[in-house]
């Protein structure tokens, strides 16, 4: 078998990022009193954002693991082991501020940071950095080790997933927006950050550290709903990652915001259609099940909105210079015929 340098690089990057993002708060010492390496971001109006939750509730944070807003890699998720919260998860950021009805002028710097990051990396973040993706890939590695093959979603399911990611992100934002209005204020406590409440990260992240989140909050109807939902989603998460490859990432609303920059961003994938005789290796190896790279026979740019830039296609394509991965127009890697290494 040929040497797979890109995949090896990717695994290493994923592992390093996983440690940094999940345990960053320990490493960089972000603390509630602001004495860590990384500075805190003060709320615009000085109001504590953790108010309104009672102990044991899903979004409640203990005093020793408070929600601190800081910069990455201090914390990536609200439910990170040592507490902490960077406005890194775009969906969290949007939902929260839609509810708090924060003024745009306070949000602009953050939005700019998001836009720049998304422009630079687009869904590359999903394939190389996302800690959930890393855990999913680990489940996939377990499957491979056990000798099972993956399931491929059919065309119909693919189309459904394509629609449902918009539905998921849209409904989460809609609910967040509505509960910010005075009329629905009494629902604010239970419906706050609806997507976060069922996101698999909310159970996985605390489990990886010392924090004690509420795993079983059945005190009210809504918390029962979200607790049960979160566990089901978590089970589904590992089941999907174990059985198929990255089908999950097709519905991830966080990835959705990045995917807008897959075309027109800094990264791109180009194909020399003449060199391609459609041997299908790119389509067969793609963990997202993308076919457009394989099908394209006319256009040069083959960046797909779902592409997570794992670059398996570029790595495995046996046609010299057929596929190229570019960053600001500069070729970072190109496809090569892989000779069997002498053994």
């Amino acid at each position, binding site marked *: *078998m*040929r040497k797979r340098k890109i995949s090896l690089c990717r695994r290493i990057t994923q592992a390093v990022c996983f440690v940094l993002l999940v345990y960053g708060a320990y490493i960089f010492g972000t603390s509630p009193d602001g004495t860590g390496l990384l500075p805190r971001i003060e709320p615009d109006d000085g109001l504590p954002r953790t108010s309104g939750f009672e102990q044991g509730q899903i979004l409640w944070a203990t005093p020793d693991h408070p929600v601190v807003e800081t910069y990455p890699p201090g914390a990536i998720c609200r439910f990170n082991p040592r507490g902490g919260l960077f406005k890194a998860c775009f969906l969290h950021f949007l939902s929260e501020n839609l509810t708090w009805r924060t003024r745009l002028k306070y949000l602009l710097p953050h939005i700019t940071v998001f836009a720049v990051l998304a422009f630079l990396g687009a869904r590359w973040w999903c394939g190389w950095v996302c800690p959930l993706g890393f855990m999913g890939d680990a489940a996939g590695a377990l499957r*491979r080790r056990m*000798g*099972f*093959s*993956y399931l*491929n979603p*059919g*065309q119909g399911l693919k189309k459904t997933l394509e629609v449902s990611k918009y539905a998921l992100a849209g409904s989460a934002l809609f609910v967040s927006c509505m509960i910010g209005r005075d009329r629905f204020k009494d629902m604010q406590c239970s419906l706050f950050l609806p997507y976060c409440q069922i996101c698999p990260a909310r159970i996985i992240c605390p489990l990886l550290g010392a924090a004690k989140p509420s795993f079983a909050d059945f005190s009210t109807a809504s918390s029962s709903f979200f607790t049960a939902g979160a566990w089901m989603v978590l089970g589904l998460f590992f089941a999907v990652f174990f059985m198929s490859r990255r089908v999950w990432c097709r519905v991830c609303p966080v990835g959705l915001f990045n995917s807008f920059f897959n075309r027109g961003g800094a990264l791109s994938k180009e194909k020399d*259609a*003449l*060199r*391609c*005789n*459609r*041997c*299908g*290796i790119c389509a*067969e*190896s793609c963990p997202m099940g993308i*076919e457009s790279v394989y*099908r394209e*026979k006319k256009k040069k740019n083959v960046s797909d909105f779902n592409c997570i830039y794992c670059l*398996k296609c570029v790595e*495995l394509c*046996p046609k010299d210079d057929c596929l190229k991965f570019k960053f600001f127009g500069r070729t970072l890697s190109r496809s090569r*015929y*892989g*000779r*069997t290494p002498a053994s």
Partner: protein
Amino acid sequence: MKKRKIISDIAQRHRMNAPFDSGGLLEREAGERMKENLSRLNGILYRPRGMKYFEDAVSSPARFSWLLNSGGPVVGYFCNFVPEELLHAAGVTGVRLCGGILPVSDSVEDILPRDACSVVKSSLSLFMSRMAPSGACDVMVVPASCDPKAKLAEILNEYVPVWVLNLPRKKDYEECRNLWFGEIKKFKLKLEGLTGRKIGREKLRDSIMLLKKRQDIVHELYDFRKRHPFLLSGRDALLIFQASFADVPERWIERAGSVLEELNTAAGEGSDEGLSRVKLLLGGAPLIWPNWKVLHIVEEAGATVIADTLCSGTQMLYDPVEIDELTDEGLLRAVAMKSFLPSLCPCFIESEDHVDRILHLAEDFRVDGVVYHNLRLCFPFEMDSVRVRHALRERNIPFLNIQTDYSQEDTEQIRVRVEAFLEIIRSRK
């Protein structure tokens, strides 16, 4: 002993007459044709010494002794659509049966229609006369690529067990790819039934890795011919590729590797300095040994075929199996897709890949012209030639369409056309 038994039992069961014995007539005819071809090969400017092995592999009287002496079942197959990796992993002796000789005393006229293509007629008459390797097969595998092949499978099934692989005609649909994968899965089960042994994961992986060494060599030859177009003639290159029909892969890999070394040394010594011939790309229908007519004519007229898209040539050993996942199904799927998707066969609905490949090679090798071999009565290739001609005209690359078959009568007409074509190319230079 066991081999004979299987064949005779089948022959008893069937309605049609048992295969005839040509009394050695066909063998004599084939021998003469091969001898003539071999002597014409001596006219090539530079020939590596290692070519002797490849000549013997396709033409010596003892060429199929390895096959007849092999202990396991012999599986004959047609086309690149049959994954050799699976045959190798199953431990059966696989041999490709595509015929390149059509006897004058045509014995299959009453079975096949007059207008069947030469490949089908030739393959059937080789089988009917019990000539090796066809006569030694316990099982034949026929992918239903074009209509004559599908029907040939049915006719052959009267005498030997034939496994037909139902080839989908579209590459794009996922359904088609899954259908083909299903066919290969069934094929694997049948192979396991034949040998009584499972094809394990390690075995399949080892076979893939062994057979991929052939692709490595072909890629090196490809790059070499790009740099030194006149050191290896098209006739010798095609002979090297086709010898892989007729011998075990290990030996082929070793011998082809030594030819490659010889070529590199010759290039290092500057053996091709000052040579200037017309560089041609050969496309179209397969040329199968000893049907070297078109190649002889083209190369004897002062041109060299430096690249080809023939399914019996470079295309046969060009695309590698790339393993993504080392699971049972992952390996099998990689093997199945390699035998299906990279094919340029015009039997597919889209001819885009076929045309693009010709354009790419013409560009990559900077050829002076393209010769397209049309096998008479093979309509898919004929239909594609129109698109190829238009695409080449747009790029201002000279194109010659030669329509012929296995007979020798039109040799001089073709020679006149080829010489005129080369004259036009030389005048453009």
